[in-house]
Every structure is written in C-alpha cells, then in structure tokens.
C-alpha cells in the first residue's frame, strides 16, 4: 500500500505533466518579453533605419522564416551583434516573409531572441523598387546581407549563407 503523501505527490506530478502537455498541444505561446517586430518598411523606411545608425558599421540582413540558410545563419548574426555592439556595430534584420506569415515571423523572433531590431518588408508596391534600392544586382534571393560603413555608404554585399567568420571579417575591415 502506498503512503498517502506519496500518492498526493504523484497526483500533483501527473497534473503538472498533463498541464504541460496541454500547453504544448495548444502550440507555442509567445513570452511577454519576446522580441517584437520593429515594424514594416519599404525602401525609404529601410534607408531611414540605416541612417539612424549613422556613425556605426551597419549590417542589414534580409531573411525569411521559410529560408533554411537564413535560419541557419541567424544565430551568427545574434552573436556578431552581441560581440561588436560596443565597438560600433549595429545589426538590422529585415524579414521578407509575406504579411500573411506575420505570426511565423514573430514565433521565429521569440525562439531566437535577437537583441537587434527586426522589420518586415511592407506588403505590396513594386518589389523590384525595394530590391533595387538594396542593391541593383540583387534578385531577391535569400539570405542577403549588406554592410554599410560608418559614413553610411554601402561597403560590402554578402549573398547567400555566411559563416560567423565571414560576417566578422566584413565588419572588422570597416571598423579599422
């Protein structure tokens, strides 16, 4: 025969387990302090966002939740920003996800917890205008990263998935 106290503890554990399973079944719940999108932006909004960090080396990374290499390199951008923020580096993320996938973007940010601002490209308008404003040679493929020097001028264009070393090389060359 089991001790009544042990029975109570067992019941409590079972209840806690069931509660946890119910939460999991209901889907992820975003924590109150989860990073939020800084807003949506078009070509002008992006230029303004970069200009706000004038005097810093600004890394702008274009990503999407459906883009596997984007998801893979994102932790390296988080690490880069943490490592170099005190040395004059700012990172901005721009999601190219469609507006209908906003919840996926928010969940991605909540899971990764970047400490830099992330925007989503504003829906509609001429997509080519936006793409050309970032770089005339860009065709919208992801991931895509543009690094601006302290004077605000575009200094590096990194197409495709990058390693941490590649990001670090790009910013350190501009910090000299």
């Amino acid at each position, binding site marked *: 025969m089991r001790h009544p106290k042990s029975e109570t503890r067992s019941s409590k554990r079972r209840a806690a387990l069931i509660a946890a399973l119910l939460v999991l079944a209901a889907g992820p719940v975003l924590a109150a302090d989860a990073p939020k999108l800084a807003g949506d932006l078009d070509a002008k909004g992006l230029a303004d966002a970069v200009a706000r960090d004038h005097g810093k080396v600004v890394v702008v990374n274009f990503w*999407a939740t*459906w883009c596997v290499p984007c998801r893979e390199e994102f932790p390296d951008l988080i690490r880069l920003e943490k490592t170099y923020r005190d040395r004059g580096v700012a990172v901005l993320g721009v999601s190219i*996800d*469609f*507006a209908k996938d906003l919840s996926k973007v928010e969940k991605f940010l909540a899971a990764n917890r970047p400490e830099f601002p992330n925007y989503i490209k504003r*829906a*509609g*308008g*001429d*997509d*080519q*205008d936006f*793409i*050309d404003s970032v770089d005339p040679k860009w*065709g*919208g*493929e*992801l991931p895509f990263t543009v690094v601006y020097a302290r004077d605000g001028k575009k200094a590096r264009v990194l197409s*495709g998935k990058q390693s941490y070393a590649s990001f670090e090389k790009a910013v350190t060359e501009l910090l000299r």
Partner: protein
Amino acid sequence: MKASRALSSLLLTAALAAPALADGPAIGAPAPTFQLTTIEGKSFSLADAEKANKAVVLMFIATKCPVSNAYNDRMRDIANEYGKKGILFVGINSNNTEPESEVKSHAKEHGFAFTLVKDPGNKVADLYNAQHTPEIFIVGPDGKLLYHGRIDENQQEPAKVSSPDLKNALNEILAGQPIAKAETKAFGCSIKRV
C-alpha cells in the same frame, strides 16, 4: 517509345553540349534549344515548339519557393488565357531539391494545365543563365529571345499589380508590335543548382 526516349536523351545531350552562355541569351539573340521529357513522359523540343506556336513562354518555377508559389494562380490563368491564342507555356523546374514526383503533385494541386519539365542537373537553367524562380523567357517562332524577366512587379497583391510585364509582352507579340519593355528584372528564390 523506348527509341523515342533514347533519341530525346541523345538530342538533349547534343543540345546541351554547347557551352552555357555566361550571361544568358540577349534579347533578339537565338534562344538556346533543348529537348527534355515532360512530367507526363512525353518528349518536348523547344525547336519544334517554336515552329508550332506564335511564341513559347519558358517559366523557371519551383514547388517550395514562396515567391514562385505566390504566382501559381497567375501563371495558371495567364497560360490558360494566352494558350488559347497560340502561345505555348512551359514550366521548367531546375531545382535539384525538388523531385519530379513533387513537381507532379504541385502541378495537380495548383491546376497547372501547361507543359512541365524537370531539368536534371539544371542544364537548361545554365543555358539561359536563369537564376530565380519565377523567371520568364519568351522565345519567338524564329527562335529568338523576345522577353526576359518577371511576371509582374507585385508578388503579394495580385489585385494591385500595376506593371503586368509578361501579359504586356504577350499582347504586343500577338499584335505584331515590338515589345516596349523586353527586359525586366526577375526576382525570387535562387535556383537550387547541383
């Protein structure tokens, strides 16, 4: 049937023996010919298709790319509309990450009635230097490239399209007029090459 497949294979090899154009064909230049097998197992020859149609629209597309998928309904509708007017549409899947079985189920799901081919080893994509999905090339009956670029400018909001570049080009071709905007910039996902 077997002999036909063998011939197709031989012709494909021959057609692709030419070196890929580093920048792809220019507007007005001969479009590289190729021969591939459709997802229904039929032989498709661009050279033959050129002779039998007012124009051939080559559409590099994907099953997984959200940008290409945003254009599924538009591609289906344009192909249905202009197919009746003597234009042939060919969807080309060059992504090594998307097998033929997936191309077939994707076509069924989205009601594609146009010809679809898988491009093993992305050789046709290389011949045209196609980089994105979706990316469009229109070839005229004389085998020359008439248009290269995007379908339109607005991937997310079809109802708000203000520059229907593919349709404009097709209308001009059917009217026997020169294409005012023969080159636009294709944008979308990168073609997943081998």
